[in-house]
C-alpha cells in the first residue's frame, strides 16, 4: 500500500504465557533438525559441519521443566542469514532456515541437530560476532519468553563478542558455552554438545533483556 506510515506509532501487543496447552502436533518431526530446511521429503541438506546439542531445562530446585518450548535462531555455516536485513543475505545457504523448535520431555530434555554457525562482522555494532545460537525458552509460568545465547567452546572469537561480554562474570558467562559431551541420541556424524538451561537457582543461565 502506498500510504505513509512514518507518523504512526503503535505499541506492541503484550506478551502472555504460552501456557501448558500448546498443541502437541505443532511440533513437526524435523522441527528440531535445522539441517532440514523443508518438510518436503528429499529436500537438500544445509551445508556445514553437523552439530548435536542436547540438555535439560530446569526450574527452581533443579526440577525438570517439562512441557516447555525451546526455539533456536542462528546464522548458516558461513555466518549469513537468509533475511533482507543481512547485507549478505544473497549469499546465504538456501537450504538452511536457521530456525528450530522443540518441546521439552518429561525429564526436561531438549535436543537439536544443526550446523555449526559461522561468525560474522556485525553491521550494527561493528564488532565481530562469534559463532552463536539465539535461544528462546517459553513455558507456562513465563509471561514473557526468556532469551539466552549458546556459544561454542575453544572459540577465540568469544573473547571479543559483544553479547558474550555483556555478561561480566566469567563464571556466569561459562554457562552459555556448549560442553563437548557423549550423548546417546547424537547422530554418528555430528559433534555433540550438552548444555542445560537453568531458569532459576544455582548455576542459573544468564538471560538477556528481550
Amino acid at each position, binding site marked *: 500500500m502506498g500510504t505513509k506510515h512514518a507518523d504512526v506509532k503503535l505499541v*506492541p501487543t*503484550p506478551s502472555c504465557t504460552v501456557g501448558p496447552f500448546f498443541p502437541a502436533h505443532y511440533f513437526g518431526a524435523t522441527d528440531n533438525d535445522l539441517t532440514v530446511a523443508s518438510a518436503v521429503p528429499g529436500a537438500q541438506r544445509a551445508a556445514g559441519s553437523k552439530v548435536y546439542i542436547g540438555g535439560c531445562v530446569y526450574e527452581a530446585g533443579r526440577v525438570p521443566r517439562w512441557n516447555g518450548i525451546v526455539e533456536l535462531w542462528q546464522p548458516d555455516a558461513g555466518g549469513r542469514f537468509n533475511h533482507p536485513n*543481512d547485507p549478505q543475505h544473497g549469499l546465504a545457504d538456501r537450504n538452511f532456515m536457521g530456525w528450530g523448535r522443540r518441546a521439552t520431555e518429561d525429564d526436561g530434555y531438549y535436543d537439536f541437530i544443526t550446523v555449526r554457525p559461522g561468525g560474522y562482522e556485525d553491521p550494527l555494532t561493528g564488532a565481530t560476532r562469534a559463532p*552463536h545460537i539465539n535461544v528462546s525458552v517459553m513455558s507456562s509460568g513465563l509471561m514473557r519468553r526468556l532469551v539466552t545465547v549458546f556459544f561454542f567452546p575453544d572459540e577465540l572469537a568469544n573473547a571479543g563478542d559483544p553479547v558474550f561480554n555483556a555478561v561480566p562474570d566469567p563464571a556466569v558467562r561459562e554457562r552459555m558455552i556448549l560442553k563437548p559431551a557423549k550423548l546417546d541420541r547424537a547422530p554418528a556424524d555430528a559433534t555433540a554438545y550438552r548444555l542445560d538451561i537453568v531458569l532459576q537457582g544455582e548455576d542459573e543461565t544468564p538471560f538477556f533483556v528481550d
Partner: protein
Amino acid sequence: MASPSAPFANRFAPYDDRTQPAMRVEGYRETLVRVPARAPYTRPATLSDITGPLNLAQKLDAGVSDLSRTPSGERAQGQLVRVCGQLLDEDGVPVRGSIIEVWQANAAGRYLHKMDAKSPFPVDPNFSGAGRCVTDAQGRYEYLTIKPGAYPVPSHPERWWRPPHIHLSVFGEGFMSRLVTQMFFPGDPLNAQDRILNSVPDPAGRERMIAQPVPMLELPRADVLGFRHDIVVRGHRATPMGL
C-alpha cells in the same frame, strides 16, 4: 558514526515494561519457580536479533483457518466466531507472510491436550482447537472458530477461572518480533479477575489483548459473531517486508 547500518539502530527499541506483563504474578505460583532470580543482562542488538525465518511455511504445515469443522465437515459445538485483524509493526506497516498459530479450549472449556486430561469438561470430538494462518499482502489474517469456554485453572486451590481466550503465536519479521500472546473477549466478567490479563500494569496494554466486536452487518454471514484483533509486533521498518 555514520554507517549503512545506522537506520537499524532503533529498529527494536526495548519494550516499555508498563505495556508488558510482570514476570512474577501473584497467585500464579508457577511464575515463582520459573522466573530467573537475576535481572536479565542488557546486550547490544546485532544482526541475529533483527533477522528471523521468513520461509517458515516451508517447514510448518499450513494448518487450518477453519477450526469450527473437522476436515470431513462435522461442526464443532458452540457459538461460531470469526476473528480477523492485521499484523502490524510499530510504524503501522503490515507484516506480510507471517505465520500465526492459534489454539484454544473448546466451548466447554476443555483443551484437546494431555495436560488437560483431568478436566471435568467434555472433549468435543469435532474440535481440535488448533489452527494456523498466514498473513496476506496487507498483513491481514482471519480464522473461523467457536467461542472458547472459561475454565478453572487446573489444580489451583484458589479456584482461579480463566476467562474465554484464544492463544496466539506470531513470528513477525525476526527474532525480536517473536510474540506469544492471548486474545480475550470484550465485556466478559471474568476478564477483571484474570491474573494473566491483569499482569499487564497499563490498562491500555490490557485493552490491546481484548478483541473488538465487529458490527453484524459488516460480516459476510449472519450466523457468526465477529471480532477484530490487530496484533502489533515490535519493530520499525522502512518498507514492508518482502519488497
